[in-house]
């Protein structure tokens, strides 16, 4: 567990970080909380020539409101997210899901933005931010741009960030009035989700008016269970939810590993989607 040699810089501003990334090109990597990059370095699965540590850049940590949006700075840790009153009030799904990430030590160092930029489909938070219709704000040499979550996750461990761009903010539309639940299935508490289902449900007149469902670890990127989302519209009881959940695994491409087959993961997706929606809708 000895990382290969690399150069290290610790910029004090976003501009300086972006310049360092631009100079480093494809061989540069951003270090935030280090909970994804350091294991990759130690296992010699990543060989960056330059590590740009953004941990000391002022102003990147914290949560604020911006009208109907919640804005979470890039260095905001999982622990901060779990305990932030704004997040709990306006994006309870994110707080609930983040509380299931790894263990307290990881949550005190790891960051929301780092987890999203790492783009591991087995991470809990990409699917959650996808379900929340979040957006990412990236800053690069050409200025700032905003990327919708559905366009952000490109492939396994690959986001649409350019090598010289730094993810500086995560913006989430306030989900006031939505019921939510994150159903995580894993074998031990510190392991990645075998499957995770992030459910957001808005009810009207005793029926589900709108549902958004994000799936963790069911493809090379986080997915939305769109067929189930559509089928849930108008669902008024547990039976209707169960029927809608039958299509939750449509369009997924689950992987095979030592813990589970794709067939089983698809089955879990259907069961967990039903449970997550029922819990989110208060129908459980």
């Amino acid at each position, binding site marked *: *567990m*000895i990382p*290969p*040699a690399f150069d290290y810089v610790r910029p004090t501003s976003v501009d300086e970080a972006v310049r360092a990334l631009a100079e480093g090109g494809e061989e540069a990597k951003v270090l935030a909380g280090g909970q994804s990059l350091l*294991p990759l370095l*130690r*296992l010699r699965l990543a060989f960056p020539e330059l590590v740009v540590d953004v941990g000391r850049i002022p102003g990147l940590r914290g949560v604020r409101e911006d009208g109907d949006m919640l804005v979470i700075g890039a260095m905001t840790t999982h622990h901060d997210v779990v305990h932030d009153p704004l997040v709990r009030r306006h994006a309870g799904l994110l707080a609930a899901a983040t509380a299931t990430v790894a*263990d307290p030590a990881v949550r005190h160092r790891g960051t929301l933005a780092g987890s999203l930029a790492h783009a591991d489909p087995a991470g809990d938070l990409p699917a959650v931010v996808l379900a929340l219709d979040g957006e990412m704000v990236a800053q690069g040499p050409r200025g700032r741009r905003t990327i919708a979550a559905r366009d952000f996750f490109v492939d396994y461990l690959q986001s649409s960030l350019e090598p010289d761009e730094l993810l500086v903010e995560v913006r989430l539309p306030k989900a006031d009035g939505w019921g939510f639940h994150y159903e995580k*299935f894993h*074998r*031990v*508490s*510190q*392991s*990645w989700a*075998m499957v995770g289902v992030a459910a957001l449900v808005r009810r009207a007149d005793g029926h589900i008016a709108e549902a958004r469902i994000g799936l963790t670890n069911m493809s090379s990127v986080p997915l939305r269970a769109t067929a189930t989302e559509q089928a849930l519209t108008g669902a008024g009881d547990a039976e209707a939810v169960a029927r809608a959940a039958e299509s939750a695994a449509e369009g997924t491409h689950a992987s095979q*590993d*030592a*813990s*589970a*087959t794709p067939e*089983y993961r698809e*089955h*879990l997706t259907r*069961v*967990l989607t039903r449970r997550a929606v029922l819990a989110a809708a208060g129908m459980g």
Partner: protein
Amino acid sequence: MTDQAVQGEVGRARPRKEDARLITGQTNWTDNISVNGLLHMAILRSPMAHARITRVDVSPALERPGVVAAFSGADLAEGLNSLPCAWPVTEDIVLPDHPPIAVDEVRHAGDPVALVVARDRYAATDALEAIEVDYDPLPPVLDLEAALADDSPLVHSDKGTNRCYVWPLKTGEDFDSVRQRAEVTVKRRYVHQRLIPNAMEPRAVVVTPLAASGEYTLYSATQIPHILRVMMAVVTGIPEHKIRVIAPDVGGGFGSKLQVYGEEALALAVARRIGRPVKWTESRSEGYLATHHGRGMIQDIEIAANRDGKLLGLKVDLLTDMGAYLMLVTPGIPILGAFMYPAIYKMDSYDFTCTGVFTTRTPTDAYRGAGRPEATYAIERIMDELAHELGLDPVELRRRNWIGHEEFPYTSIAGLTYDTGNYEAATEKALALFDYDKLRAEQADRNSRGDTVRLGIGVSTYTEMCGLAPSRVLRDLRYAAGGWEAASIRMLPTGKVEVITGTSPHGQGHVTSWSQIAADVLGVPFEDVEVVHGDTKAAPQGMDTYGSRSLVVGGSAVHHAAVKVVDKARKIAAHLLEASEQDLEFSGGVFSVKGSPDARKTIQEIAFETFTSHDLPDGLEPSINAEHLLDPENFSYPHGTHLCAVEVDTETGQTRIRSYVCVDDVGKVVNPTIVEGQVHGGLAQGIAQALYEEAVYDDEGNLVSGTMADYLVPSAPDLPEFTTERTETPSTTNPLGVKGVGEAGTIASTPAVVNAIVDALRPFGVDDVRMPCTPERVWRAVRSGMEASA
């Protein structure tokens, strides 16, 4: 039992003397040790399970910054003998050569091929990438049954077979005749997955050479400094008296450090070659390939009984995975289990055969319980199957067959003489704590409602053989060493006490427990006792720590040595008090003359009088120090009853342990807190085998579960609240009445959990789930059961 009720130190829940330094890390682990000029060794390992090495070129590594030396296996072959196997279990066992570093063939992924020595660990690791190795792939040997076929590829082609040995044990009536007269027979196959021991501290070794005198000090994170010293002399040819082995504080072992490793010999050989101190520390993922594994066994077991549940006989056929080489006690591990399959039950016939098989995987060897968990698992699983077959409650079936408390000492069908036990008492206590009848009622209710979440109840009784071991028994089992243990006690001039033990703790708290034992016999304060261990210069004799032996053998040796100190001190006290020895009483550290309580000398005063030696009896040696080497007369036999309730989500296959009760009888207890800690840790590891852990290999022989992200070690949130209680039936074969507790929890918990899962799934026609009982395996078992009944 409360502290107030305890007379003296033994039985008192003393906080451990070790904790302050172990918990804060203010201590020496091997990897912390630094000396002037220290170099770091890194090892290049085979990426293939099986291949011929056609070329190794280490010269490019020498060009890398900071590199001092680099060696191939061939470079080091001269002067390095084969690593030892100390337990050739049969006369005709196949004993392959085991070079500490491969020379012409690699036989498992992780086999060492070359090494680099550099100024720091980073430079050494980086330089490995420059070494060029050409391999000519050979077919892997992975399946235990296929490996025994005539046309199988061979792990050791010069041996002509993958069959390492066949070890039979047949006692009592012939099993075939028992089978014929039996009203019921049940036959099952159980599989023990390979496990990775996962001690918290990885392995590490530091060797410091003294060129002028040809002496070497070898620090190692080992359980066995004394055995290691002997074996290092054998492997390297360095005379034994020129080798000092130190086991500093060692962070766990679970058997994985009951080993003589190639890396230890390599560090010694390299330090000798270049005349500089050398350190090697494994990384966790390196350890997964290079530190020995545990379990790895296929069990065919058949049980014969009458309709009333009376057991008649047992037949056991094992195929056990040796891995690529025989390490220190690899072949003997299943043999430690051979005597335990009949467990606590009476029967007329026992027919056991174990076949050892070579595969191209990391060698196996001792892992917490070592053969005994495997045995207990098989018998306790099949007892549940038999109970189901007979329509009997599983506890009732056990009750009808176990040895009654009035029948001890009892010689089991396997030939062990159990000195004491009370299975009835432990079981009754466990059932009451568990609320067995209420849980059975809830189970029936859930089943009748067709609840998605089913309740299962698992029972496991067990006994085990601890206190390894009577040396003559070891001779009969063809083990190469003895089973004694050494202790000596030094009374210092100021009345303080040093206990020197041959055991080598790596988390067991011997410093605390040995202090309690010595304090009681000598009548000195607990705080006045220091315990010295783990250094062949300071504690020159010992057989080290494994197999729940330390308290039973080593602790008893401390007791005997302390008694000798008191006997010696009595002579001096009698002289000083001008009384006869017979007229002296000794209590609470004070010698007094019967009838004249004012005439008294404390043992501390005697220690000082001995130091000055101004007024000793004529001809008396000026010392009250004493030594005792104890060869145990028998094993000890802890036992207990464990009960587990699980909730199984039949939709997802997820298992949740709802409650866990264990009542263990480990004899007299020296320190209840330490005992409870041992039980908790043991339960965690046993549950881990049942539910979580497995060393998974692909078809090429690569370890797929090669990091802690894939090899699932449970942590506190994954485990239930344990209810741990005890009964106390003292052992009669040692002066302390103790039995050993290091492995009990691991032995009983695995079958208790799996029995509970199978019990929950009986309504679906399920009669086994292979370990680890992953959610998918459980889900598939439910689904195939439902399909079968549809």
